[in-house]
C-alpha cells in the first residue's frame, strides 16, 4: 500500500519526466515571437530612423537579410556547433540540419524544435546589432559576407563557451540572457568594423542627423516589449524565474532611461527623446546578463549605472576618440554588456540585504570568485571577438575589393546605389 502510494505520488512527475511541460512550451513559443519581433521590425526600425533618409532602406535591408542568412546557417550547422556536444570550445555537427531532431525530441522541458528556434532568434539579432557600427557606407555584399562569417566564427563559439556547456559555463560564469554572448560580441564587432571601415564622409563636420526619430522611438518600444521575451524567455519556463527576470528587466530599462535623460538635462539643458530611448537600450543591455540572478533593488542600481556609464562612454568614443561607430553600438551594447556581466557577479550574491540576488554560478562561493570568472569571460570574449572580427573584415575586403562603397556612392546614398530604391516618395 505504501509502495502504491509512493508510486502514485510519483505519477504526475514521472508521467512528464522525459516529456515536455506544455505551459513552459506556451511561454517560449511566445517568447520566440517576441525576440524575432525585436529584430524585425524592432531593431531595424530603431537603427533605420537614425541614419539619413538616403540610407534608410539599406539599414532595413541589411537587418532583414542578416536575419534570413542567420536562420539558414542556424539550421545548417549553427545550432549544432553552438549547442552540440563537442568540446569546451565548440560543438559538433551531430545535429546539422536538425539531424535526428523531430517533433517529439525534448530539450529540458521544451520540444527541442522550440529550443532551436528560440535560440535562433538570438543568433539573428546579434549580427544584426553590428549593422550600427558600419551603417551608411559598407557594400551590401561585404555586409553579408562579414556578418555571416562573424556569426560562424564569433557567435557560435562564444555561445558554446557560455551556454553550450563550454569552458566558461564550466567555470560557472553567469550570463543569463546574453550580456556576453550577445552584447559584448556585437558591441566589439561593431567597434572594430567602425575602425576598419573608417568614419563616414562628413563625420565631425556635416550634419549626420537622424532622419526620422519617430521611427527610432517605434523601434525602441518594440525592443522594450520584445526584451520581455529575450530575458523572460531565457528562464526557459513559465514561472517565478521568468516573472522576476521580466521585472528586473523592466526596472533597469526605466532607470536607464531616466538616468540618461536626466544627465542630458543637467549637462545640455534639455532631455531628448533620442537620449531617453538610448538610456533604455543601455538599461536593457546591461541587465541582460544579470536578469535571472538579481532582485528588484539591484536592478535599479544596475539601470542607473547603465545610464551613467554608457552616457559617458558614448561621448568618449564619438567626441574624444572620434571613432564613427555610427549608431553607438559599442558604447551602448558593448559597454552595457561588460558592465552588466560584471555587476551580475556582484548582485547575484545572496548576502546583500535588499540588494541580494539568487546565488553564485557553478562552484563559486563569494563575490570575489564570481567576479574573477566574470572578468575572465569578459576579457576572453572581448579579445577573441576583436581579433576575429578584424581579420574577417580584412579577408572580406579582399573578397569584395574593399568593404566600402566609393565616395560618389556614399554621397548618393546606399538605397539607390545598393538597391535601386528610395525609402520615401511622399
Amino acid at each position: 500500500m505504501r509502495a502504491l502510494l509512493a508510486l502514485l505520488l510519483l505519477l504526475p512527475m514521472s508521467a512528464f519526466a522525459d516529456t515536455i511541460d506544455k505551459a513552459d512550451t506556451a511561454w517560449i513559443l511566445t517568447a520566440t515571437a517576441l525576440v524575432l519581433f525585436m529584430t524585425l521590425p524592432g531593431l531595424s526600425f530603431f537603427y533605420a530612423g537614425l541614419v539619413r533618409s538616403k540610407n534608410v532602406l539599406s539599414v532595413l535591408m541589411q537587418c532583414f537579410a542578416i536575419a534570413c542568412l542567420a536562420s539558414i546557417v542556424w539550421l545548417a550547422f549553427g545550432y549544432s556547433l553552438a549547442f552540440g556536444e563537442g568540446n569546451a570550445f565548440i560543438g559538433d555537427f551531430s545535429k546539422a540540419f536538425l539531424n535526428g531532431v523531430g517533433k517529439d525530441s525534448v530539450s529540458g522541458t521544451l520540444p527541442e524544435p522550440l529550443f532551436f528556434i528560440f535560440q535562433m532568434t538570438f543568433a539573428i539579432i546579434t549580427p544584426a546589432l553590428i549593422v550600427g557600427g558600419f551603417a551608411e557606407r559598407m557594400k551590401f555584399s561585404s555586409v553579408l559576407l562579414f556578418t555571416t562569417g562573424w556569426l560562424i566564427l564569433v557567435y557560435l563559439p562564444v555561445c558554446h563557451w557560455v551556454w553550450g556547456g563550454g569552458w566558461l559555463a564550466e567555470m560557472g560564469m553567469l550570463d543569463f540572457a546574453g550580456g556576453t554572448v550577445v552584447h559584448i560580441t556585437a558591441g566589439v564587432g561593431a567597434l572594430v568594423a567602425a575602425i576598419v571601415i573608417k568614419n563616414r564622409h562628413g563625420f565631425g563636420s556635416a550634419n549626420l542627423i537622424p532622419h526620422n526619430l519617430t521611427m527610432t522611438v517605434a523601434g525602441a518600444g518594440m525592443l522594450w516589449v520584445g526584451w520581455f521575451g529575450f530575458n523572460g524567455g531565457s528562464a526557459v519556463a513559465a514561472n517565478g524565474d521568468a516573472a522576476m527576470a521580466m521585472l528586473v528587466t523592466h526596472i533597469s530599462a526605466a532607470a536607464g532611461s531616466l538616468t540618461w535623460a536626466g544627465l542630458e538635462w543637467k549637462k545640455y539643458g534639455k532631455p531628448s527623446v533620442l537620449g531617453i530611448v538610448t538610456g533604455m537600450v543601455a538599461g536593457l543591455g546591461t541587465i541582460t546578463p544579470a536578469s535571472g540572478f538579481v532582485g528588484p533593488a539591484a536592478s535599479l542600481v544596475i539601470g542607473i549605472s547603465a545610464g551613467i556609464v554608457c552616457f559617458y562612454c558614448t561621448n568618449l568614443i564619438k567626441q574624444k576618440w572620434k571613432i564613427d561607430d555610427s549608431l553607438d553600438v559599442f558604447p551602448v551594447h558593448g559597454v552595457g554588456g561588460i558592465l552588466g556581466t560584471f555587476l551580475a557577479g556582484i548582485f547575484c550574491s545572496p548576502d546583500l540585504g535588499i540588494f541580494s540576488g539568487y546565488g553564485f554560478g557553478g562552484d563559486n562561493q563569494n563575490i570575489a570568485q564570481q567576479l574573477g570568472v566574470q572578468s575572465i569571460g569578459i576579457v576572453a570574449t572581448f579579445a577573441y571577438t576583436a581579433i576575429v572580427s578584424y581579420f574577417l573584415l580584412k579577408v572580406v575586403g579582399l573578397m569584395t575589393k574593399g568593404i566600402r562603397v566609393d565616395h560618389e556612392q556614399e554621397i548618393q546614398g546606399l538605397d539607390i546605389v545598393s538597391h535601386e530604391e528610395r525609402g520615401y516618395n511622399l
Partner: protein
Amino acid sequence: MKKITAIIKPHKLDEVRSALSEIDVKGMTVCEVKGFGRQKGHVELYRGSEYTVDFVLKTKLEIVVDSDRVDTVIDTIINAARTNKIGDGKIFVSDVIQTVRIRTGEQGNDAI
C-alpha cells in the same frame, strides 16, 4: 505686371493670405523654403553630438499683380506678417513680361 516675392514666417501664412484676400488678390503660389539671414538657426544635440542647423523654416509667397497694386499688396503683407522680431522676412519685387492662363489662353492682366 510685377511679381512680389515675400519670405515670411510659416505661422503667419494664414493671416497674410486672409489679408490679401480682403484686398482682392485673387491668386498666389506658396512654397516652403529654408532661410538664412540675421535670424540664427539653432543647435541640435543627438547623443551628445552637436549639429548646427543654419537654416530657419520660412514660407515663400509669389504673387503676380498689376503694377498699380504693388504698393497696396506690399503694405498688406507687411501688416499681416510683422511680429517685430528678427526673421520677419523680406519682400522682393521684380518685373513680369507676360502672363498666360493655361485653361483659357488669356494673356496679361486678364490672366492674373
